[in-house]
């Protein structure tokens, strides 16, 4: 790992504690982590280990109970809901296991969703969405609705949606979990290409074979980082 690379994310002594009535759950326990430009990271760990919590915090969907989270120069751990929403909109692209496409919108409109919450005009939104669908190779499927697309194609639409705002990092939560192995491999190849093109990718998975393709692997166990290499 070339340490001379620019640091994008700096997580310092972050804890996340859930208060579930009687019991207190420490989902993350004093975790520190740096993520650099053009990293390709897989986060692994059994269910309940805290990997989803880490993912949510990195993705600015949640704020830590304790510790500091800096994204570039911005202190995420101190932000309110609106500021977090803006960071998510501008800096982060999400890819979900279940695609999470809106069934009533076509591929093009689905890709456009993040742009609606930015300040772009209509013309520019369309151009950007077309460009993103072009990158994932779905330029012929722009007007298709999700139920007219295969699983692999749906995930590619979701990736296009993640790319459309030119985010600093792409967060993928089990992106191949709902796909057959052939489509899954295609998606993984695609992630490799995105990485080669200079994108920063963070992927949560529990499949060894998937994790092997990434350049850096972080194992989480009981809310602590067990391995980072």
């Amino acid at each position: 790992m070339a340490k001379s690379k620019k640091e994008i994310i700096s997580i310092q002594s972050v804890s996340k504690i859930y208060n579930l009535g009687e019991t207190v759950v420490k989902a993350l326990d004093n975790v520190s982590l740096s993520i650099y430009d053009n990293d390709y990271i897989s986060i692994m760990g059994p269910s309940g280990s805290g990997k989803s919590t880490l993912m949510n915090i990195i993705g600015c969907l949640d704020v830590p109970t304790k510790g500091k989270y800096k994204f570039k120069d911005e202190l995420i751990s101190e932000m309110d809901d609106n500021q977090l929403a803006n960071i998510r909109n501008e800096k982060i692209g999400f890819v979900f296991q279940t695609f999470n496409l809106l069934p009533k919108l076509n591929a093009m409109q689905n890709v456009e969703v993040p742009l609606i919450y930015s300040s772009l005009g209509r013309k520019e939104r369309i151009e950007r969405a077309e460009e993103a669908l072009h990158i994932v190779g779905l330029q012929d499927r722009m007007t298709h609705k999700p139920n007219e697309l295969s699983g692999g194609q749906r995930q590619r639409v979701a990736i296009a949606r993640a790319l459309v705002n030119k985010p600093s990092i792409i967060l993928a939560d089990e992106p191949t979990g709902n796909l057959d192995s052939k489509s899954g491999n295609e998606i993984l190849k695609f992630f490799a290409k995105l990485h080669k093109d200079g994108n920063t990718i963070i992927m949560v998975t529990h499949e060894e074979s998937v994790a092997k393709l990434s350049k850096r692997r972080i194992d989480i166990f009981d809310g602590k980082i067990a391995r980072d290499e």
Partner: protein
Amino acid sequence: MEKLLEMNNFFKNIIIGLFSVRSNLTRVILTASGLTIGIFTVSIVSAAVSSIDKEFAKSMDYYGNDKVYVGTWPWSFDFDWWKYRNRPKIEESSLEYITQYSEYITDVSIKKNTWTRATYGNKASWVQLNGVYPSYQDMLSGTKIENGRFFSQNEWDLQRRVIIVGGTVRDGFFQGKDPIGKKIRLNNVTFEIIGELKKQGIGMVPGGTLDNLVIMPSTTFERILTRWGFDELVLQTNPEDIPLAKEEVGMIMRVARKIPPGDDDNFAVNSADAYMEQFNTMKNAIAGMGFLVTGISLVVSAIGIMNVMFVSVRERTREIGLRKAMGATNFNILTQFLSEAVAIAIIGGSVGIALIRLTVFGLASFPIPNFNGATLPISFDLLLVFYTFTVCVFIGVLAGLIPARTAANLNPIDALRDE
């Protein structure tokens, strides 16, 4: 610029809200129909009330706000027939007492009333006949001589057979041509038309229309037609003097008729403002009932919309989570769901307006046969449309606020995990 971008964002969220209305059209229409009924009733009630008002104003013009009428019957809806039927006829001679003693009455006329058959060629019609003094020319209210002239003192003295006709005679007998100089027969006596009155339309007065009217000298009326017409005294005063004038005229009448102190009046002093009270009571009763029913249906439809909005939020929890993950702020989501609720309300209101428009159109295109081609007086104004939309937006916001807030405050992580 910042402001402009924010506005732009605001409208984008409204469009998203409208889009989801389109994709659930059946449900939306069913929900909105409650509001349609509410808006329809409120419109009908307002239209009815404003029409009553308009007609009423016209009727007020007919009687005038500056006149006192003396007759046997009081102008009231709850009169006691047995009490009034045996009252003595109004005597024309009372006018002399009034002219002599009254401080407030500036001009007087008799008004003899009857209904008679008017014929011209082979056409016939019933008309209301008034026999009056020449002074009545200046006491016409709500209308005036539009064509020709009133009869003169000389014609009155000589009991000439000259008449002034109301606006419907021209259309009924002369196909819209000038009736001046023409001769028509009333009760088989020939009369010459010397003047024509301006049209007034339908009013809430006995007989309904104000235009089916023929005026002639009271002397002629008495000699040629009947001595048994129903007589009234028409007394001119100033609008602000009406209460005093009525009281004064009542006292003079008692003296003229030599009614002993303590006995009841055997005549009635009337004026338009007494009518006004009666009408206002009626109008308020109609409006009160209508608005109560409407209020209930509006509340029920607001609850309906709220319910559908809760369902919509529940169904689209994942969508909300996704939109938030993609950068939608709480305010974005709030706007989206609020505009959905308002859109449902406006759809309901618009259908209501379309219905009321159709109803008004339907009513207006069926003339009432007995009123010489006049139609039922019901009005429809643009202000109503404006009020309806205001009410719809208000109800939409009211009904949508709690569900939209629920949606806006959802935690994106939980929302995304929703099955």
